[in-house]
């Protein structure tokens, strides 16, 4: 496979911290949420509810910091969707990977995410997680609905949205964890998210991969 490997510093300290912190919270929320849903007994309903609510609210607050970080650092550009090479990436995972082909869009400092990842992470950070947070927050505030002028809300429908979100996140988690094993070694990507250093094949960054507008930071 890859011959000329080189190390690049891909993920900043905050990014890595956020990644694992959020991962941990999501896993805890999934476990406690499904316990609340009645799937199994682990902490007991009371404790599951308390942990779920506590971690849920903590996540909301922490997420605000993440949003702040994304915009102040310009990292949001990493999530701007593109159709360039999208087909090539899909083709790679569906076919090329089995033949030992090289990834069509190797990681670069200015392009951490391939087109498929960009789309998925954008959907995740801009749609799925906010929907889950909003529905969770409303669920949490059930007793105040009348005061908030939300008396017309239906808990049944809200719970349905929250459940749909929970399942979607679980599906993402399964796929995501698996995808991390598709690097040049099984734990290569995981290691990168811990150390910040990703091993990549040397090569030139494509123009289209560059940030939409050149920024002052490089």
């Amino acid at each position, binding site marked *: 496979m890859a011959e000329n490997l080189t190390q690049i510093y891909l993920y900043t300290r905050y990014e890595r911290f956020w990644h694992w912190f959020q991962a941990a919270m999501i896993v805890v929320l999934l476990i406690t949420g499904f316990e609340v849903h009645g799937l199994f007994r682990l902490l*007991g309903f009371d404790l599951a509810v308390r942990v779920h609510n*506590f971690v849920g609210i903590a996540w909301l607050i922490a997420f605000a910091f993440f949003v702040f970080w994304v915009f102040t650092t310009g990292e949001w550009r990493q999530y701007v969707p593109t159709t360039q090479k999208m087909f090539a990436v899909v083709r790679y995972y569906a076919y090329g*990977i089995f033949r030992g082909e090289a990834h069509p869009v190797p990681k670069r400092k200015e392009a951490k995410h391939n087109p498929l990842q960009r789309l998925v992470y954008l959907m995740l950070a801009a749609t799925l997680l906010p929907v889950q947070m909003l529905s969770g927050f409303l669920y949490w505030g059930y007793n105040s609905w009348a005061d908030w002028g939300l008396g017309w809300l239906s808990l049944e429908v809200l*719970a349905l949205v929250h*459940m749909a979100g929970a399942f979607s996140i679980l599906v993402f988690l399964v796929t995501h964890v698996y995808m991390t*094993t598709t690097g040049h070694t099984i734990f290569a990507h995981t290691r990168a998210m811990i150390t910040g250093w990703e091993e990549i094949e040397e090569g030139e960054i494509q123009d289209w991969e560059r940030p939409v507008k050149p920024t002052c930071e490089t």
Partner: protein
Amino acid sequence: MMPIRWMRIFCVVFVLCAGAVLARAADEAAAESAPGRTMARQATQDVQGWTTVDHSRLDALKKPFASGKQVTEACVSCHSEAASQFHQTIHWTWLGTEPDAEKRMGKAGDSLNNFCISANNMQDKSCNACHPSWNGQGTEGEVNCLVCHGRQQINWTEAFDDLNAFSGSDDPEEQQIVADIQADIQQAVQSVILPARENCGSCHFYGGGGDGVKHGDLDSSIAQPPKSLDVHMGVDGKNFQCTRCHTTVRHNVAGRIYSRPAAADRKSLIEDDLTAKITCESCHSATPHKAGSKANDHTDRVACQSCHIPLFARQNPTKTWWDWSKAGTLQDGKKYNEKGEFGKEVYMTIKGEMKWEKDVKPEYFWFNGSMNTLTIKDFIDPEKIVAVSAPVGSREDKNARIFPFKIHGGKQPYDTVQKVLLAPMLSGKDGYWETLDWQNAIEKGMQALNASYSGSFDFVETTYAFPITHMVAPRDNVVRCAECHTGQGGRFASLTGFYMPGRDRTGWIDSLGWLAVLGALAGVALHGLGRAFSRKGGKEN
């Protein structure tokens, strides 16, 4: 080096977060006293001896008494309004406060139950055993103040009968008997108290004709209960008497009366220091749990009793079934009784078949404080189980909360033509207990009520509901969240029309969700296998 260091930092952060969550949770679990408890403790100091009268030193009570009437006169000679006040209360009239003159609510009126069914316009004299008059004379007689205010209960009827039989005798032995009886009477008359649990209990523990027959949360075990049976009345705890909560104004004792709720609104003593202390909230407030506790979010729709009385009849058994249709069977041509598991009758020739239960889980219904009780004038649908008494309320009713109940089932006679419940006469020489003749007993009973009877009867299954509010358990025994928040036969399983986390789910989203998760798992598994094999193949080539 780098990865290990960062891994370590991450672990520390994670452990800290997890620790914070668990510490908070544990802290809540081991909650010290909840504010509502502290508040109630402040509001209810131990009773001080505040009375300014020693009844044993009053001349009016030192004279000899020859009849109950004379005792009442002695009481009223000081407490001038007591008897006339008492005459206005349901404890005397046995009539409800409903304005409907057609249907008189009350035991002395047209109300029915599924125990001894009716008092037949007070003409079933056995019922008068609990009427607070002398010698069971009912409303015609004089008030027996000592039923509620006497510390020493003696058999008054027997005492006065014996006294009058022997008085005037020359026989010194009989004179001694008279003196002894008179001494007993005087001692009983002079030991005046505020009503104690035993006083109220002498009737309310034995409703339906025996210990624990009716209520399930009120029986002789409450007379001197341990705190584990009732945190308020426990003799090793606050040792409350009934009147501590059933506060009284002009002899009107606070409490529900048929359709009239025990309290008109949910007020605490902080809002109104003269409010009846009849609700939990009177002393504990509407949000008694620790701030931020989820339990406080429940008090708007779930009554305190629902969680704090996990089981009733925890010491003595209570009757849960009474089938009158089985009555009348003889053994060797004689009436007989048969006892069951708890040493309680499970069959009586004169009463039929009964069931008793202990440690009973309540049934839960929406309840706005009002009960709907049938009278002999209400039409029934004999095709269905007839609710002789049922809680009023629904989720849509803003004043209704989910409340625990004892449901007493049974079978009782109804008029197959007029479709109303029937009120047989039970005691007396024409009563069913004597004659075992339903037809005659029903005719006599309905006559007493001035009600018509078609002449044709059969038995119908009925239920009678009792709100459960006594036998509040210690904190450690409260109903756990998951006893209701579960899809597997939770306590609220029968309450529908709203979504409860843990109990309810939208089936299709779960199916779809799991399908997607399984799909993802299968997808990555296949993909992974594909990679493993293709790579192997590659190397071999």
